[in-house]
């Protein structure tokens, strides 16, 4: 009986130490998208928000071409929740990433067009959504996919 009491007391004392500290609300939204040139080695650098990453694998994933990144531009925006939305001209998908231990980890791949690639894509910040404008169409995105009711 005493043993159970000790365990309960210890649990009460240790619980606050184990709980995660959360700061909220937090808003990670970028006001506008960044249009970034892909560098020689696939490196992309965003000056204002100080983010850089290698985009080679992204282009390989999308096009199947290991040199598909050359002379290309990426459209990048961050949502209120902190997800990075990335696409490029002629991509069929929008890639959603989150920051994870020094990497960008794919959270979702949203298919926009199953036949031809999207043309003249542009992201707009429309909190809580990210608006994707392409081929004179507009759809709202979240990290989970296309907002219900918006057509492809």
């Amino acid at each position, binding site marked *: 009986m005493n043993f159970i009491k000790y365990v309960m007391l210890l649990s009460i004392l240790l619980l606050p130490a184990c709980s995660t500290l959360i700061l909220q609300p937090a808003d990670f939204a970028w006001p506008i998208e*960044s249009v970034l040139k892909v560098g020689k080695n696939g490196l992309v650098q965003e000056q204002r928000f100080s983010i850089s990453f290698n985009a080679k694998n992204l282009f390989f994933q999308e096009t199947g071409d290991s040199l598909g990144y050359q002379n290309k531009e990426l459209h990048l925006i961050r949502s209120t929740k902190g997800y990075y939305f990335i696409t490029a001209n002629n991509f069929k998908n929008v890639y959603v990433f989150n920051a994870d231990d020094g990497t960008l980890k794919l959270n979702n791949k949203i298919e926009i067009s199953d036949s031809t690639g999207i043309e003249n894509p542009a992201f*707009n910040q429309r909190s809580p959504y990210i608006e994707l404008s392409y081929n004179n169409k507009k759809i709202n995105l979240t990290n989970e996919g296309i907002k219900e009711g918006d057509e492809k």
Partner: protein
Amino acid sequence: MKMNIFFTSIILITFLISQSFAQQDYQIVQNFKDKQQQIENSIRDADSLAQLDQVASDIEKLKDDYTQYKNLLDKSLYPDDFNSSIDKLSNQLSLRKGDFTQINVLQTQVVELKDQFDQLNQRNNELLNQVAQLEEQSKKDKQKIAQLERSIAELQTSIKKRDKLVMTIIDSLIPASSRFENLSPEQKQKVLSEAKKVNLISNILKSIQDNIKFIEITKLNPNDIDQMKKQEEDFAKMWRNAGPKIIDIYSEKGENVNHLKEIDSAFTEWHNAINDEPWNTIREDYSKYNINLPEFKSGTQFMQTMDSYIDDQIKNIPIKGNEEAEQEYKYFVDTVWFPQVKSTWIPYLVDNKMFKEDQKDSIENKITKWNDEIHPSKFNWLYIIIGLLVIVVAFLLLRKRSPKEESSV
């Protein structure tokens, strides 16, 4: 055919409408930035106030067109925002307008100054010739001396006026505030054309050369030299500060810069002429009495010249005879050294660290030695006679007292 045109128009209109609707946030911000940049370029490249007035309306239009996107631009124009971006443009515009206002004032000033230049140049030429003639005439006709002095005073004032004018023009063209800044191509062009309008370079050269000529043809006193020195220092300082900028502008615009280099050597010549003037005047003072001293340009050379001259005079006393030697001593010492050199020039030379007290003492010791050599007997005989008189009187007194002392015993 008509149908084709109709369908083409419909497609074009639809495309344009769709484009305007499809304007994205990023595109809005980029367009704003592009227009901002265009306006900045227009401000920088404007050639006249009229062009800047057009830019002012462009800024107003930009403000009106983008006020609807203010929230987006406030967030996106990091580190500025919409209002501060517009303010920046307005500030740049008013600064640039200031440049043009300054240039317009300068243009008016320069035209006025050019007339003054022409008048002063002509007057200075006349006076320089007049003074040169009077210098010659005054040697023969003493009545001309007063006229000469008046002309010299007038010439001095006129030369000073022209120097001041040249400095004013340099100061107007390259104000002190802009001497260390980069001028825009338009400002440089303005400076060049205004400088050429007033023949700035040749007028600077002429001013310096006239000053040198003035020193050469007139006899200056220490006060005149002090004033001239100050004038030269001010002028040279201004040229040191503004000259390199003017040279840069001339060479950038492909103009001949040889005259500009001549100005530097002319300043050196002027500086040397001022420094040599006291020595030359002392030589001239002596030459009036046919005492022709070799040239000297420093305190040491002056002392050596004087020493050597006096040594020669002492050595030549037996050959020349006392009368002639004494006459030369009188001219050299009593007429020139004491009243002119020692009282007028030595204090100036010592004050300006061109001559030392001990050098003066050395010359005076030589003069004393010379004097002793010319008048040796007068001094010795006088003492001998007085000495003999004292001995004779003492002897007589002693002889008178001796018999009384014997009789009393």
